[in-house]
């Protein structure tokens, strides 16, 4: 905790709302606002900033963090994307799968202007597959602009371990196309898995213009309030990129929304390890925080139909929300109660029985049982059959129990954070859960999560435990990750290692092991 007053601004641009909070050095919410997200999102950012800074001493604001769906939307809508030249350094290996092979046609046609697989890249041992074919790189540079390419994505085999060929290709591309030409290198974007890393690098290159507009808009908005402060964007693992880094690696910001929301909710509740269930109008999304960060999914993540190897939060969704429709089918065919998956969604405020509407929803059941308060008229639901109420809530409780159980990675009991407009559906007692929390300022948890984000550094490489000891290899990986976190802005004295993952390599003698380490620390 800091001894001098210092504020941070957190802003989150969501699909519906743009939220902003001002947070003090102790993590307290000084001020929070919510405005509608605008078609040109920078307008909403400007408006939320304007509102949140009213009655706040701007002189105390030191940093501003932005979480935004701009890049995700650009990919999903195939809009405003730059055309990319794709250069793979791996021949003669990898020729069996062309760049963009498994992409949906519509995004491939928009994004991939030209592609080539040239000689280069490395083996798992670090030896070259082939010397880099510099002439081929020059030829590609000469031809790419004619195919409309505004940026180039370069990916070499095993570049997360050995990046020389990607760096040399960058030099050549700069010589041929000029130093300012936008180039994304795969070892700076993704981890092991050539096709997925290449995909992420192509998407990164395609997002450079979008990112540049967002960031300059954000910085202009801050400057408009005479705030000459550091600006950051949040990435999908809940940590920060400086505005400069975000401009170079926009793809890393994809999917930061759910992460910010979960981290914000946990910080507001004051817990580090918890199951988070966000119950909305239509669905309930469950995630889990371990040491204050969302557990990442092991499955390949698709963004707009393109497979990447990003580590996105492991989320589970089911059709259970405040607007979920409840049908009593017992009288008719004896089939019993039918709950969802359809929902009246946000129209629950006008269509539910408890507000005089005609559709029986889970909110009505919740009100009849006394779980829901401060909404609707209890008299309107008084006539609902008690058996039906009991059965429907038993179903809800079972679903919540299954979700929280599936999220846990061990039998140890964890607290559960019930958030979102439909959180009233979650009972006070859930099997396997130590305690149910309902954080108060949840409405702005996303922006709060952005505002409290820290800097991070990661490493992902293959070590041989027979060449040097496992402990020595892990120490080396920890150091590399910590150094990367310091470069990202973390306070060197307050860095902690948040994850170490070792994946032993099958069929490889010599103790080959893939090691992934992440280091995190508060901003210096």
């Amino acid at each position: 905790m800091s001894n001098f007053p210092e504020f941070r601004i957190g802003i989150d641009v969501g699909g519906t709302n743009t939220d902003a909070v001002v947070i003090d050095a102790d993590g307290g919410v000084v001020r929070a606002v919510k405005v509608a997200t605008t078609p040109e999102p920078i307008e909403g950012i400007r408006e939320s900033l304007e509102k949140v800074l009213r009655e706040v001493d701007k002189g105390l604001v030191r940093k501003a963090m932005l979480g935004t769906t701009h890049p995700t939307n650009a990919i999903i809508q195939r809009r405003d994307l730059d055309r990319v030249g794709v250069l793979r350094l791996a021949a003669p290996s990898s020729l069996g799968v062309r760049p963009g092979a498994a992409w949906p046609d519509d995004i491939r046609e928009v994004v991939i202007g030209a592609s080539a697989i040239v000689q280069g890249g490395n083996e798992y041992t670090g030896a070259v597959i082939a010397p880099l074919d510099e002439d081929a790189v020059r030829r590609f540079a000469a031809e790419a602009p004619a195919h409309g390419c505004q940026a180039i994505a370069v990916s070499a085999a095993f570049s997360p371990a050995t990046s020389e060929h990607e760096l040399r290709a960058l030099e050549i591309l700069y010589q041929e196309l000029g130093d300012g030409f936008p180039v994304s290198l795969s070892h700076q974007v993704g981890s092991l898995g050539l096709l997925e890393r290449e995909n992420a690098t192509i998407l990164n290159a395609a997002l450079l213009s979008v990112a540049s507009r967002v960031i300059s808009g954000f910085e202009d908005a801050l400057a408009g309030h005479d705030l000459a402060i550091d600006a950051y964007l949040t990435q999908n693992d809940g940590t920060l990129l400086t505005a400069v880094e975000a401009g170079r690696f926009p793809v890393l910001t994809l999917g930061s929304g759910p992460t910010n929301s979960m981290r914000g909710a946990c910080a507001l509740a004051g817990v580090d390890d918890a199951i988070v269930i966000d119950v909305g109008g239509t669905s309930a999304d469950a995630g889990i925080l371990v040491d204050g960060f969302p557990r990442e999914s092991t499955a390949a993540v698709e963004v707009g139909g393109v497979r990447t190897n990003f580590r996105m939060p492991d989320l589970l969704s089911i059709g259970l929300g405040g607007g979920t429709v409840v049908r009593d089918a017992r009288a008719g065919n004896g089939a019993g109660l039918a709950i969802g998956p359809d929902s009246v969604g946000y129209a629950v405020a006008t269509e539910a029985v408890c507000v005089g509407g005609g559709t029986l929803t889970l909110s009505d059941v919740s009100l009849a049982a006394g779980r829901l308060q401060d909404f609707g008229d209890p008299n309107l639901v008084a006539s609902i059959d008690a058996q039906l109420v009991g059965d429907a809530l038993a179903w809800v409780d079972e679903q919540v129990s299954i979700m929280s159980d599936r999220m846990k990675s061990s039998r140890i009991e964890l607290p559960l954070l019930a958030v979102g407009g439909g959180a009233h559906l979650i009972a006070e007692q859930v099997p396997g859960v130590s305690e149910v929390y309902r954080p108060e300022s949840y409405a702005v948890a996303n922006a709060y999560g952005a505002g409290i984000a820290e800097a991070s550094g990661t490493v992902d490489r293959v070590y041989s435990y027979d060449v040097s000891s496992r402990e020595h290899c892990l120490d080396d990986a920890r150091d590399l990750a910590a150094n990367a976190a310091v470069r990202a802005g973390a306070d060197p004295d307050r860095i902690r290692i948040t994850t170490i993952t070792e994946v032993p390599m099958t069929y490889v003698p010599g103790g080959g092991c893939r090691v992934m380490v992440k280091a995190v620390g508060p901003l210096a």
Partner: protein
Amino acid sequence: MLTADDIEALCLGATLLGTGGGGDPYIAKLVAYQALETYGPVEVVSARDLPSDALVLTTAVIGAPTVILEKIPAGTEFVASVRSLASYLGKAPTAIMPIEVGGCNTLFPIATAAEMGLPIVNADSMRRAFPQIEMTVFTLAGLPAGPLSVADEKGNQCVFETTSNQVAETLARTAVIQLGLANAISCYPLTAGQVAEHGIQDSLTYCTEVGHLLQAVKDGQVGAWERFLGESGSRAFFTGKVVDLDRRTTDGFARSTVILEDLHGSDSTMRIEVQNENLIAFYDGQPVITTPNLICLLDCESFDPITTEALAYGNRVIVIGMPCAPEWHQDGMLELVGPSAFGYDIDFVELSV
């Protein structure tokens, strides 16, 4: 004819027959798509329909799954492994054959057949995934794995004459470590007559059929689950939740023990022992499914086959036992691929359906 339209079902079937291992067929699927698109469809033939003295050569990927994710095959290494063995034998191949229909090696030979303009033989030597070269019905028939060739994508090739199929395994692995751990192997050079007599017949058809049957289950078709079990001769043994997962690596093999608790609330548990592939399933301590029969884990909701690597605490899975190919049931099976071959002091259990 086998076209790009057949790949999806074949790939799903191959993941199932991978029985928890066998290598993720995703990259192999992309390689097969590109080859079929570039070189055209592949003719599928029965070994019985080829001249009995025609040369049939196999090809497969050999290496480390982690490395193959980064060093994607070129396609040319498979062709090179076949050509170098053919050149050593002094005879051109008439057809290509998968050695392992189960996991990624189901699909690579299809790409090779397309590129070489040769038919693919509807047969193999495992009809599931196994971790070692000698674990084939050909070994049971006394057919040698050698001479065999190993090739990389750069033009390096080696051919081994070997005294036993176990030595073949050792030599090939040693070569692969030097060649970058993502290579092609061609072994068990056989005549069509030998394949017809000793191979597992129609395994590509079987793989495609179980793929279609499982796809119907995934699509939620009425009666599809019963059809899937009935037509594949399989049985669902347990529906449970992963409550413990112990992973360790010894001698280069990924070994793990998976413990499942009954989802329906009884105190029963299932324990599965894994060495790359799922090998033995114990119900309340009693072995109920043993290698070479197949132990497959399906996700309770999506019915996707789950590989050992992707398995995590809390997964809800259905454990099914599938019968191994009938061709396995002959003298020597248990010594070669039964529980004792993997170091378990357990008797083989017939699959009761």
